């Protein structure tokens, strides 16, 4: 108990210095946690993707469409259960800054393909039977205060003109990482309208979502889907939804790498600050450590005391940071909702935050602790005397 009291009192001996060190560690770990959460948010689409879905797209690029007629051929491949055409619609609600993702999709098997979108059977039916209906995520509904029955008009960017539609269903995500900010409209609404407005652009799908029941056969099925279209006008590329999403993420790889690097640099900086605090603290008290040694305390005991002091500071900082991180991330989440639909502090981030707390505490104390353990009493007294 006495030893513990001594350690505690020593840890907060220079109150200002200790508090500043703790604040530094807190700020650094908060920054680290937020940066990691940004990275997680970027990967959220990947994490949320289903192993039972494949995406077939134009092999040349994502922006090139595929003939809708491919659907029948894909449907015939063994192992394929569902095929649904889809297109990135890119509609704007009133103003560009109101951005949210919106897709035109074939509705018939949509809810079977996306079991993580929870919609009541009545609303499902209402959506499927209204050609100009739309289904939207809960967060999107909250953002614009939309309710079922409301009419919303999107301005087309890729598909010109005004596109009025009626909200028929609002989905909730089955998992915390399900994106609740998307609007889906009927692909048939898009296609039939295009037939009138720009006939040469009708009959084209941006991609096909392919449902399979045996996820372990994904690679084989993908190959079988692509095979018949080799050397055709529009070759296809089929991959798992996860790989497809990863493709988006890898486009920003350089940014992600930079963010990752910064998050670790922050830790290194705070390690230097903490190490400096511990070195100063140990140097100032060299005489006291020499007295304790004279009384018979061993080098390792004293090194342990310094290590404990260091851990008290770093873990206090880590605990404060990890307590503040979720509310802070929540604040960011509301502000960033349109860029990062999923902005959640993962348990892993909290664990890593504490891990770095321990690491900073230990590393900051290593050198001064060794010095204290090794110093000879007579030398220590002479240095201070």
């Amino acid at each position, binding site marked *: *108990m*006495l*030893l513990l*009291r*001594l350690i505690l*009192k*020593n840890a907060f*001996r220079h109150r200002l210095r200790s508090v500043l060190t703790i604040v530094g560690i807190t700020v650094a770990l908060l920054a680290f946690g937020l940066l990691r959460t940004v990275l997680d948010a970027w990967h959220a689409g990947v994490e949320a993707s289903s192993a039972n879905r494949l995406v077939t797209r134009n092999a040349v690029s994502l922006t090139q469409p595929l003939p809708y007629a491919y659907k029948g051929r894909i449907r015939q491949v063994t192992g394929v259960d569902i095929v649904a055409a889809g297109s990135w619609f890119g509609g704007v609600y009133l103003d560009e800054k109101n951005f949210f993702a919106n897709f035109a999709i074939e509705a018939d098997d949509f809810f079977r393909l996306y079991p993580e979108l929870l919609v009541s059977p009545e609303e499902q039916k209402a959506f499927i039977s209204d050609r100009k209906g739309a289904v939207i995520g809960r967060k999107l509904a909250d953002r614009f205060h939309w309710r079922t029955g409301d009419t919303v008009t999107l301005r087309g960017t890729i598909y010109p003109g005004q596109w009025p539609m009626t909200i028929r269903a609002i989905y909730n995500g089955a998992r915390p990482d399900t994106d609740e900010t998307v609007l889906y409209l009927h692909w048939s609404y898009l296609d039939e309208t295009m037939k009138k407005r720009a006939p040469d652009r009708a009959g084209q799908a941006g991609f096909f979502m392919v449902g399979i029941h045996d996820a372990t056969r994904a690679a084989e099925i993908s190959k079988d889907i692509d095979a018949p279209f080799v050397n055709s006008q529009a070759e296809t590329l089929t991959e798992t939804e996860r790989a497809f999403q990863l493709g988006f993420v890898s486009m920003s790889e350089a940014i992600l790498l930079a963010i990752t690097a910064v998050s670790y640099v922050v830790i290194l900086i705070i390690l230097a600050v903490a190490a400096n605090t511990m070195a100063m603290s140990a140097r100032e008290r060299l*005489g*006291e450590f020499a*007295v*304790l*040694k*004279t*009384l*018979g*305390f*061993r*080098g390792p005991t004293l090194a342990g005391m310094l290590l404990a002091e260091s851990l008290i500071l770093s873990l206090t900082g880590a605990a404060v940071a990890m307590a503040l991180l979720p509310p802070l991330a929540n604040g960011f989440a509301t502000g960033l909702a349109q860029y990062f639909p999923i902005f959640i502090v993962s348990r892993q981030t909290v664990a890593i935050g504490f891990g770095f707390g321990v690491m900073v505490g230990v590393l900051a104390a290593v050198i001064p602790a060794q010095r204290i353990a090794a110093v*000879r*009493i*007579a030398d220590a007294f002479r240095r201070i*005397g």
Partner: protein
Amino acid sequence: METPLIAISHLSKAYRRGDQVIPVLTDITFDIAAGEFLALIGPSGSGKSTLLNCLAGIDNVDSGSIVVAGTDIATMTESELATWRSRHVGFIFQFYNLIPVLSALENVELPLLLTTLSAGQRREHALAALSAVGLSDRTDHKPSQLSGGQQQRVAIARAIVTDPDIIVADEPTGDLDRQSAADIMALLGRLNGELGKTIVMVTHDQRAAEAAHLVRELNKGELRAAP
């Protein structure tokens, strides 16, 4: 003749700076009997502190032996010395060297952490030691709330709380006014006279040296009987 408590023979120690060798202690041989109160005097730089540190087991020697109660501490390892010191030696320093964040009582209790005593027993022993130096009413004071003389009395309580055979003191009155110095010397005299502690004290102070039974003088690392 009775075997001495401490037998120092042919003790030498030198510091090397580059290829320069600076002898500090040269072939020192003398005995200290149990219950002795010895004062080491000598000019500054003569090696008094070094000799005291060697025989208290906090500095190492180049050659020679220091046999205390039958064991040669000059050949002990660092770790053996730590244990030996905690059982057999009490230390008093010129600048008290109390731990500033701990109360008087806690400072005195500190050496007992290395014993098997229970928390209650430790407190009892520490209170008894503080009462022996006349500071029962200052147990909760921090060192900064005590006068120099009071701090040195706390340090003496810390030195005796483990009931060691030997007490070493390096200029225990060096930082004190005359009255406080006299009080401290009286206290050391009582520890020697009433409790039979063997005391080895380094001092510059003529009055302090007079309180001792025996005075030895170091000069340029060599020992002689005081004039």
